[in-house]
């Protein structure tokens, strides 16, 4: 057992570092790249992100796991981990391309037509065109297949009506990938069709959603008679669920690389050291020590689990549902640590004044922002189901929404 790269991985890492050293500035100690959720991406930030992406693309360092045919370098999963680790040490613009390059591009590669691959993949890789995911709806979150946004054939086009929600980046994206209901009389998974939609189409209305921490990273997107040409259909009519599953599978595969940013365990220990309770440092309190130790052990457990995952990848395994552990544990842990930090501060913790509140109120912000991590990209509850059913092989729940027409599936107390 060792933590070192294999010779091949080490050589790869050297190449990566060499290029990054020559083309980017290293982050100083304590500096972090801001995340997307911390604000609405402004045009200047988008432009910087695109410039960095183009630079990487020109040098062959963009979307390295993509096949060479599409501009990648066919890198392995472990090489992708190494790249993310290294890039995370440099000052770079926030990544606004993750959704497209991570999930939607790979969907086109598997399910798209040759024409679609030719038209869309290279500009996506180069960051020239940014993509958003139009999946969730107000009545279809965890139950994505319960979606209702409809697409009706009209000549060479399809006409889309409905509403999508939680669409990150809709306001600056060129293209979106949308799943629609094309046959309400079929069973719910069998009447779905997948399209590429031009976000500048007439009839699209994008409205920001304000989160509880005050920021607006995502949107509602309304579709009113939006026309999409049939050549933008991805896969066969009524067979879009398969492509949707490909998209979702890729969503779960972000491993390695930087964490979500925000205050960390060291910051928490420092806070406990400098906070005084009844004349002594809070860090001297046994209950505080126990809790801090629990946090540490869990965090390290996650870190070492990711090493085991990396090891498996290093040996050529494909990422599996085990990666759900990272999010299932990490998201509530972040909320718990932030809540604990605010509690440490006592009444002072109720203030959010950067000049008075310790650590510039970063813990309070984290407490307000962290609930979203337990919900986005697979709720805690769905992750438990995935672990239970796909990892542990436990029998799935009895379903009441299969083997009947979608239009007959109960959606509320009225139509039971």
């Amino acid at each position, binding site marked *: 057992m060792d933590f070192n790269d294999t010779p091949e991985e080490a050589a790869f890492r050297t190449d990566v570092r060499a290029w990054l050293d020559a083309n980017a500035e290293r982050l100083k100690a304590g500096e972090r790249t801001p995340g997307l959720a911390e604000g609405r991406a402004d045009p200047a930030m988008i432009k910087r992100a695109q410039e960095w992406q183009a630079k990487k693309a020109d040098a062959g360092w963009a979307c390295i796991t993509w096949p060479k045919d599409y501009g990648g370098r066919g890198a392995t999963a472990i090489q992708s981990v190494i790249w993310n680790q290294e890039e995370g040490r440099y000052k770079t613009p926030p990544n606004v391309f993750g959704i497209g390059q991570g999930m939607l591009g790979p969907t086109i590669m598997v399910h798209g037509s040759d024409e679609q691959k030719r038209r869309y993949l290279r500009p996506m890789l180069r960051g020239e065109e940014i993509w958003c995911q139009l999946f*969730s709806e*107000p*009545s279809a*979150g*965890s*139950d994505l297949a*319960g979606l209702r946004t409809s697409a009706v054939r009209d000549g060479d086009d399809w006409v889309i009506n409905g509403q999508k*929600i*939680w669409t990150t980046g809709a306001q600056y994206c060129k293209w979106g990938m949308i799943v629609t209901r094309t046959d309400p009389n079929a069973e719910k998974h069998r009447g779905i069709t997948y399209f590429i939609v031009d976000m500048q189409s007439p009839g699209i209305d994008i409205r920001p*959603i*304000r*989160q*509880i921490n*005050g920021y607006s990273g995502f949107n509602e997107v309304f579709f009113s008679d939006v026309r999409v040409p049939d050549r933008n259909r991805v896969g066969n009519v009524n067979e879009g669920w398969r492509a949707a599953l490909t998209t979702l599978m890729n969503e779960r595969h972000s491993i390695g690389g930087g964490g979500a940013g925000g205050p960390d365990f060291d910051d928490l220990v420092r806070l406990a050291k400098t*906070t*005084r*309770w*009844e*004349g002594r440092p*809070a860090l001297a*309190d046994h*209950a*505080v020590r126990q809790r801090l130790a629990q946090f540490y052990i869990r965090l390290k457990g996650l870190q070492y689990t990711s090493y085991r995952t990396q090891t498996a990848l290093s040996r050529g395994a494909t990422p599996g549902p085990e990666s759900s552990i990272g999010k299932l544990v990490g998201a509530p842990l972040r*909320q718990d640590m932030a*809540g604990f930090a*605010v*509690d*440490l*501060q*006592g*009444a*002072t*913790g*109720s*203030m*959010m*004044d950067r000049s*008075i*509140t*310790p650590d510039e109120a970063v813990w*309070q912000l984290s*407490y*307000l922002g962290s*609930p*979203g991590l337990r*919900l*986005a990209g697979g*709720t*805690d*509850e769905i992750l*438990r189901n995935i672990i239970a059913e796909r990892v542990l092989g436990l029998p799935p*729940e009895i*379903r*009441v*929404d299969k083997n009947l027409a979608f239009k007959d*599936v*109960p*959606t*509320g*107390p009225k139509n039971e």
Partner: protein
Amino acid sequence: MNFDFSDDQKLLQKTAREYLSEHAPLSLCRAVLESDAAYSDTLWKGVAALGWLGTAIPEAYGGAGFGRLELAVIAEEMGRCLAPIPFASSAYLATEAIVQFGSPAQQQELLPKLASGEWIGTFAHVEQSGEHGAEGITTAFAGDALNGSKAPVPDGDVAHVAVVTARSGDQVVLAVVDLTAGGVTRKAVRSIDPSRSLASVRFDRAAAQRLGGATGGWDDVRRLLDRAAVLMAFEQLGGAQRAFDITREFCLGRYAFGRPIASFQAIKHRLADLYVEIELARSNAYYGAWALSNDRPELATAACGARAAASDAFELASREMIQLHGGVGYTWEYDCHLFYRRAKLLAVVLGNANLWRDHLIERLSA
């Protein structure tokens, strides 16, 4: 065994709930949260006109002459509607301090104004982050004046009078100060729950009086905090229960996979667990109310149990509320974050649960 509120007290609670359902919907809390207003003046006046501020103030001083049990049920309703007014600061802290420790002259001067709502009272104690003990007090009382600063002072920006912890020589004292007079500078401070206001307050030779009946130093402060903790626990309970009720309703109406999410066992178990935590907290709060209203020595431990249990229950309820609502629970538009913010505020404002659990064991093993 009669470990319940009386019919009259329950009727008072019912009346309070009806009034607040009409005059303090959650949209009122939201309106204060989203604006620069420190509190809802309309609700304050309405509540004052009903005599609730003077619930536990003797009739001789313009109060209703009821006891702490009546105040507790009103506190629960205040918590249920996340009332965006300085009720806690005025009724559980400033008023209690003056009733318990004021000289007759101080009581005569201050209690009628607090009872009528003409004056808002508050309690200023904390000075440094984390420090809720006597060790943190550097504000000095000498020559009938206060020098020092306090932050956060709940409602410190709008209150007229404050009871302040200070040092006089090597003793801790409780002083009362007119916040509208000279020598007082106050500034509103952004709160984690902007529906309740916080301020930093500075005293520069601000004229003040010692509370005449407070001769016990730090013990008096602890007694005052114990009393406030029980009443605050009822507010926390009210918030927890409301969060629970809303979440239960939501889970019944929200369908996924063809059935209400409330029909999934995982959700049912979560709601059952939350129900249990709230009920245990309620029982601990009831014991606190008994000890408080009868001035029992058990108050010293009852207050700790009530506060710690209520803080944990409300916080859990507020987190579960967001999680069980799914994505919409994380939006500004939905009411979940009103409870999430309020739960955290109340969990820390009188010192965190760790502190109170510590005191519990200290007192049990004394």
